[in-house]
């Protein structure tokens, strides 16, 4: 009975300690806000998923063509659009650096 009580008390104390751990580690957190992707990050995430989908579709087409599931004609009809989709997705994800207007040097 005593042993059971001691084990029970240790388990309960350990559980409380584990639950309280984030507050024990950082009693006064400077930043206690839960991280979440902002609007820009969410757009990037959606762009990355679209890029991966487009790349996967292109790879599937290549593979289906090599294994004979897609004829040469069908392959030619589809590959151009898929390549453009990949290029668009990559471009949307990594837009070219905006060129800053040149400031004329003063002599």
């Amino acid at each position, binding site marked *: 009975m005593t042993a059971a009580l001691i084990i*029970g008390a240790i388990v309960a104390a350990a559980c409380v300690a584990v639950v309280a*751990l984030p507050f024990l580690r*950082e009693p006064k957190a400077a930043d206690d806000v839960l*991280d*979440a992707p902002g609007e820009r990050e969410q757009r990037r995430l959606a762009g990355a998923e679209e890029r991966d989908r487009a790349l996967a579709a292109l790879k599937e087409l290549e593979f289906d063509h090599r294994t*004979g599931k897609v004829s040469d*004609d069908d392959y030619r009809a589809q590959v151009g659009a898929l390549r453009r989709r990949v290029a668009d997705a990559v471009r949307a994800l990594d837009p070219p650096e905006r060129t800053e207007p040149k400031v004329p040097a003063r002599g």
Partner: protein
Amino acid sequence: MPDLGRAALVTAFGLLLYATVVGALAAWKRRRRLAASAQNALIAALVASAVASAVLLTALARHDFSFQYVADHTSRELPLRYALTAFWGGQEGSLLLWLLVLCGYGAAAVLTTRRVSRDLLAWTVPVLGFVGSFFAFMLVFVSSPFVTQRAPADGAGLTPSLQNPYMAIHPPMLYLGYVGLTIPFAFGMGALLSRRTDERWIVATRRWTLAAWTFLGVGQLLGAHWAYVEIGWGGYYAWDPVENAALMPWLAATAFLHSVMIQEKRGMLRVWNMVLVALAFCLSIFGTFLTRSGVIQSIHSFAQSPLGGWFLGFICVVTAGTTVLIVARLPLLRARTKLESLVSREATFLYNNLLLVALCLTILWGVVYPLLSELVRGQTSTVSKPYYNFFLHSFGLPLLLLMGIGPLVAWRRASLRTLGRTFLWPLVAAIVAGAALLAAGAGSSRIGVIAYTFCIFVLSSIALEFVRGTRARKALGDESWPHAFSSLVARNRRRYGGYVVHASVVFLAIGIAGSSAYQTVREQRLGVGQSMTVAGRQLVFRGFEQRRTPNHRAIRAVVDVYDGGAHRIARMYPGKNQYFAEQEVSNEVAIRHDLLDGSDLFLIADQVNSDGSIDLKALEKPLVNLIWLAGFVFVGGSLIALWPDAREERRLAERYAGAMARA
């Protein structure tokens, strides 16, 4: 000891409630430390439920009959291995196992995903906590395994059918499957609650879903084998409501595993996937409800209890909550692309989904109809085998065919000319096999011939897919055939692991068709020295043998098996066991496996008569062993699909790099 168990359960309940309430508050108010604390509560609940489980196991091992649960499910003479497996032999222990497995899954999911998707996890934890709280509540307030009493001299013992080695593995496997489906459900709901409907919830739960689905599949096969060797009616699946209860979530999860690939590849079926993940989870709870409530009479009715109302209420709350949430988030779940052609790989996935869900729902209707009938008309009615067989044939055979068609069709769209070329060899193989089967006299069962023809078609298409894929990889570089093959599989484990799983389903179909459509059954009363014939084998009854063990008396008929002539090929011992503590008699069948043709000779001692004769039932079941072989192939395919892919991991890490939270 019981106080420690009770205290551990109350602690687990408190922790899970904390994870629910504080976790939801943290996610709503976006408090980082509070969210981490709720996650830790989920992990701590695993420790508390493990302590409660350890207390119950210790009591079972010690035959401590002051625990009512131990007295109700074990006896002094029950061997230790069965005393320990009695942990899940009754409802209270089963609920504790549910809780333990759920906390284990929850803790593992938190630990593996907390660095990747903190915002998503913040809403997932309260969902997991909510489900866990329900089970902990049941254990603390409704059905505790730690109720004590004045210890009786001996316990009531364990139901004889549960005194079988499969008892050690079948229920835990099923529970790993049932409970595992909570993880994708919780992440799906977490995604909806947090409005993060990108693909992170799918990526985070991909392996959990596959693992749970594998456990559920293996659990059902083990249950089928258990029924085959232990229950003693000569079959392995009886469309029992509780068996159906495990099949339904598995079918829903199978549909989800397929359609989720379409979401990943095409961004389609996003609402459908949420519906499927919720359906699979609700059906897993419904399965537990059926097993534990005793509302339907079945071979599993040893588990009757008054838990039904609680479970039904929980299912209603979950269904209503999930429906409201999905409807509220519909604008976020709009598909970005549309199906390009009805003749494409995507379309075959869609057809497969429709058939799987249709089969699942017809089985559900068969299970609930007797309940509704009694409720509405006050009459008890049953839904029997012909109903289920009709729908199994109607939906199962097209599903089988689709497994062969799918791999041969290109993604996006396929032209008829190319289809003709890719389908040629599998079609030729199937037609030749069908003709050969008819010539060999297999036409006695139309369904059997159709199933076998489809099976050959599927196996040919899978083999062709491996050959064409390997050839394509070999053509890319200077690789040997084995290297090209292994690199083909390694680069797309899910696809080729899936094909291996499809092959296992084909073996299963061959085994089921062979053992049901072409089996031979003979029944006869035999005196000592008399014989009967089944499938060309002569069975001679030689008399009875008896022996006594600590907890039962065994009586066995000695039956010699002759292969046509005078050559004895086996001696078999079908009989019965009489259990003392349980005061029950069980059938103990004798099975002779023929590994060359995959058939079994199955003997049942239907009746042991007082005049020394026996009513012997003999079954010859062709190809039945392919069903069990299918289990091994199924596990192999699942492992291939589950095996981590370093390239894929790197790609996903790069994709979600920005969304990763602070360590």
